[in-house]
């Protein structure tokens, strides 16, 4: 195993998530894409810690921050989905284009 292999895995996860975030119409599926992207960041941060700076805790702290970001993203995403669904029956990103105007 090497740092490059781990970064390849991270890049693959990130791009699969990016595809989902860009292409999905459902808000919930879009959030799944975002979570996959963050998963790639977790793998990359863990690998950087192990292969480049295992003597310092920074990489581990970064993983902790990203895990928290994931939890916050899911909680806020579902709250916003609930709010917009309740007020306007919208569950697709194509119907929520108010900021575009």
């Amino acid at each position, binding site marked *: 195993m090497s740092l490059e292999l781990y*970064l390849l895995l991270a890049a693959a996860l990130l791009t699969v998530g990016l595809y989902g975030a860009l292409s999905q119409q459902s808000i919930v599926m879009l959030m799944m894409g975002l979570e996959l992207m963050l998963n790639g960041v977790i793998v990359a941060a*863990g690998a950087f810690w192990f292969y480049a700076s295992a003597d310092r805790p920074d990489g*581990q702290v970064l993983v902790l921050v990203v895990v928290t970001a994931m*939890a916050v993203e899911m909680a806020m995403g579902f709250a916003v989905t609930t709010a917009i669904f309740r007020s306007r029956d919208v569950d697709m990103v194509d119907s929520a284009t108010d900021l575009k105007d």
Partner: protein
Amino acid sequence: MVHTAVFAVCAAASVAAGVAVFRVDSMARATLALLASFVLAAITLLLLDLSYLGVLVILMMTMEMMIMIVFMIMYMMNPAGLMPMTMVHNNRGALAISLAVFAALVTGIFLVPWPDTRPGTPADPTLQLAEAIMGSKMLVMMVIGMVLFATMVAATVLSTARGRYDRYGDRLRRSRPDDPIRGGVGR
């Protein structure tokens, strides 16, 4: 050798499960595929001596995906996956952008001269993390705490159907709340 084999299997399966999220028809299956992707990626973290963070990711994602299944079934029009459906826009564009980003990242991965010498792993990585967040990195932990608290408040406010302004008026001056069904014994 065993480590490499486990990593290869987990990495390939993790990416495959990630792709499956956007290929399957059933929303519950998509969520479980996402869970599989997270758990398999966390196993690769376990191979890096990150036992605490690996287990943390596995436990957190299992709980998170169980909650997510409920929301998926609530909000999707085809939760059981009984009929094929695609809910994508600009599929080709998204695919092209993703592939271009992947190509750029892979080029970067193989062009950057990463450090050759690996610093020694601490005897207990969990102890290293614990001492960091209770010492030199305490600010990070304090900010995380505040952010999580703000998230709880904001998520509750956003998902509440009838807040206090609906019940007590814009100036909160109403003496009795305006509820569709009044509470209490003498309603």
